[in-house]
């Protein structure tokens, strides 16, 4: 080992670096272009996997890798201000491109700061490759400076992880890491590389077939017999619904295309989870809106009363199902998922199909076209029309104060015709964004669904903007969430990433306040932000642009300006402080027991939540 580092970098390398030292290349082995340090292998592997951008933060245990990054130009490194920001940025990058996001952080706190982002990526099935530095192997277990048990800590929050103790294993592990992260149900992986392994010289090899873990064989193609059964069910349906999720997005553009075709061919109504928005266009005539706790009335009623449900790439999570014993009681359920453990986890299904969404949808369509006819579901659509007429997303407009729903609608209007990507933080603003912003294409909507990570949206927007430098990237934020990762505005300024942070500022942790109002006697325990920063001044301090809208009449102009400015913007949109997010399935209730905004008087709300603590 020792401090060999870049000084042993061979000049015969096929991609020689500007500062390689020719006098150091005298030995036989140095003629082999695949002989290199562990640190050089990492950069080489990134290049071999087509990685153009990585997000990271340097520190003692990754300095050899940063030294290699300095001496090349194929991989661009985006320096964040906190490792969590690197993780979310990589998530945004991954979700908006379909490519894996790559993160490089140091040992100890670098690794522990990544835990939130890794868990977030695991919950939402986002492919991330995170390389962490580690203290030298002889110090592992000694409580060395900036040491932590990275593989131990990240084991439950990664799809898989590795500690590389021998430089000659490094190439294989890195290639395997990319494979595991991006295939099957995508997810985050961690490769922990001790500093002595980064310095050590060993043999690199480009990616090859046998790099793959022999015991890892994700299933892609659906069982033909199950698909036939599914088609028979669909063809016989009187009251069908398609319920799609993030799996369709993860599967790639083809899956969304096929999903749209399936809706066209069958004429079925379609709803989607939070993660699945954009797979089917919001302007499509069969679109019911999002389902679940804050989904539309028509989507939830359709789910509850359907006789055949086709679930594609969604996982019946608790925000979707409501009370599980009253979830869509009269339906036969078909479930397409690449992860067998998603099947029958929360809801028992009748026809499970394990496989990739695009692959299975393709086969299903083929069989449907060959063997089935579009069922007549006119009566079902008439019923749905009645539910739609309830207008569950209505809200009381005002000329004095900006309603948050109105702000999102205005934002949506202002961004039409632009190449727009939306990220969000977590809370009321996230739900309003999902309800009122229409997504026409997949990969345009980046939000933290499973983990619900406040602070996700700002760094995720960075990642999206890095991947799409000329697009309009907007983080729809809340005043509380955005402060959690606000430091990344500095990254946006440094790398000239013109992200727009559109803050729905109601001075509360709105969703917390809403729950406190509905369930805890309106005792607003620590949900009010007593000392909010002046976001406009803050923008100024960061070197970006601050904008503000206080009255509804301010919005159009300010939004126009925000979109025009080719610099990062913090937009302080002052909205009604006490607005609640409706419609809503109260806790312990089923899909057909939604609370609609027009009915959400204090008395009705009290009654709906009466199973819980009495409202004051």
């Amino acid at each position, binding site marked *: 080992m020792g401090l060999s580092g870049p000084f042993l970098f061979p000049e015969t390398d096929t991609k020689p670096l500007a500062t390689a030292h020719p006098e150091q290349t005298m030995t036989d082995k140095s003629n082999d272009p695949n002989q290199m340090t562990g640190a050089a292998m990492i950069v080489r592997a990134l290049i071999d996997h087509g990685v153009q951008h990585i997000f990271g933060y340097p520190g003692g245990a990754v300095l050899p890798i940063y030294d290699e990054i300095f001496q090349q130009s194929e991989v661009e490194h985006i320096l964040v201000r906190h490792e969590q920001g690197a993780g979310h940025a990589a998530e945004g990058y991954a979700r908006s491109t379909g490519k894996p996001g790559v993160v490089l952080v140091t040992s100890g706190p670098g690794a522990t700061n990544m835990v939130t982002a890794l868990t977030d990526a695991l919950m939402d099935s986002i492919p991330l490759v995170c390389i962490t530095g580690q203290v030298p192997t002889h110090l592992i277990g000694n409580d060395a400076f900036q040491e932590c048990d990275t593989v131990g800590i990240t084991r439950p929050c990664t799809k898989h992880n590795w500690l590389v103790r021998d430089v000659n294993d490094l190439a294989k592990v890195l290639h395997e890491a990319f494979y595991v992260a991006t295939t099957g149900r995508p997810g985050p992986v961690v490769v922990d590389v001790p500093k002595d392994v980064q310095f050590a010289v060993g043999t690199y090899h480009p990616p090859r077939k046998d790099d793959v873990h022999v015991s890892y064989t994700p299933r892609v193609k659906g069982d033909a017999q199950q698909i036939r059964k599914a088609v028979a069910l669909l063809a016989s349906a009187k009251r069908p619904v398609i319920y799609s999720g993030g799996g369709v997005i993860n599967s790639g553009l083809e899956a969304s295309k096929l999903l749209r075709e399936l809706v066209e061919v069958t004429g079925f109504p379609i709803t989607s989870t939070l993660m699945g928005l954009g797979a089917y266009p919001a302007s499509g005539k069969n679109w019911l809106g999002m389902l679940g706790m804050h989904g539309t009335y028509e989507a939830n009623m359709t789910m509850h009363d359907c006789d055949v449900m086709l679930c594609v790439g969604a996982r019946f999570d608790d925000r979707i199902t409501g*009370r599980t014993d009253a979830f869509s009681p009269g339906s036969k359920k078909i479930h397409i998922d690449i992860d*067998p453990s998603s099947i029958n*986890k929360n809801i028992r299904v009748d026809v499970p199909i394990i496989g990739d969404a695009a692959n299975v949808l393709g086969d299903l369509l083929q069989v449907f076209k060959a063997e089935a006819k579009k069922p007549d579901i006119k009566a079902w659509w008439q019923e749905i029309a009645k539910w739609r007429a309830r207008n569950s997303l209505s809200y009381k407009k005002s000329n004095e104060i900006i309603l948050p729903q109105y702000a999102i609608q205005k934002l949506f209007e202002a961004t039409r015709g632009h190449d727009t990507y939306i990220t969000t933080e977590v809370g009321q603003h996230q739900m309003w964004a999902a309800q009122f912003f229409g997504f026409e294409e997949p990969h345009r909507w980046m939000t933290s669904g499973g983990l619900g990570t406040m602070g996700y949206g700002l760094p995720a927007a960075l990642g999206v903007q890095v991947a799409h430098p000329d697009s309009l990237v907007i983080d729809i934020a809340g005043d509380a969430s955005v402060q959690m990762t606000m430091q990344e505005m500095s990254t946006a300024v440094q790398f000239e990433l013109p992200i727009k942070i559109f803050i729905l500022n109601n001075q509360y942790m709105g969703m917390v306040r809403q729950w406190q109002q509905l*369930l805890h006697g309106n005792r607003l325990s620590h949900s009010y932000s007593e000392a909010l920063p002046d976001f406009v001044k803050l923008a100024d301090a960061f070197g970006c642009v601050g904008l503000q809208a206080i009255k509804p009449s301010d919005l159009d102009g300010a939004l126009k300006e925000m979109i025009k400015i080719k610099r990062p913007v913090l937009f302080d949109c002052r909205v009604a402080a006490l607005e609640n997010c409706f419609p809503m399935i109260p*806790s312990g209730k089923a899909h057909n027991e939604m609370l609609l905004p027009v009915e959400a008087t204090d008395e009705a709300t009290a009654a709906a939540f009466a*199973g819980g603590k009495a409202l004051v």
Partner: protein
Amino acid sequence: MNQPASAYFLEDRHDPNETHTLSVLVQNEPGVLARVIGLFSGRGYNIDSLTVSETESQKHLSRITIVTSGTPMVIEQIKHQLDRMIPVYRVVDMTITGRSIERELAMVKVRGRGDSRVEALRLADAFRARVIDATTESFVFEITGNSSKISQFIDLMRPLGLVEVSRTGVAAIGRGPEGM
């Protein structure tokens, strides 16, 4: 449904628990046991018994036998969750196949003199337990069998001067000519 104020839907499920024995073939790599155990603790599954050892060192294969209990839905989840782990080759539910043999080994230390010592020896003989260590006032018995037989033997030894027990946990294998 009455439930306390919560952002979660709180439901009681009253499906009866079942006990299942799972055989899990894994790549013997660092941390693989921690992964399996972490899965059980992290997702709140039960481990009644867990036995692990390398079985084919050239192929780096280990076999883990887990006895677990839960509702049928939970047992199905456990199998899927195990199966999706990267280093896991295969998961076989020995209880569902119904054609498996389960064995456990225990070493049982009994201290006593006179009649109880004679009685312990006689019972050991009836249970086909072997004496693997003896002093003038103690025995260590080695007994192999299914778990209930071993538990029964231990119960019988208790009044006869039982000092301590070391059990291996259950190992299981399928009957017939086929491997798992």
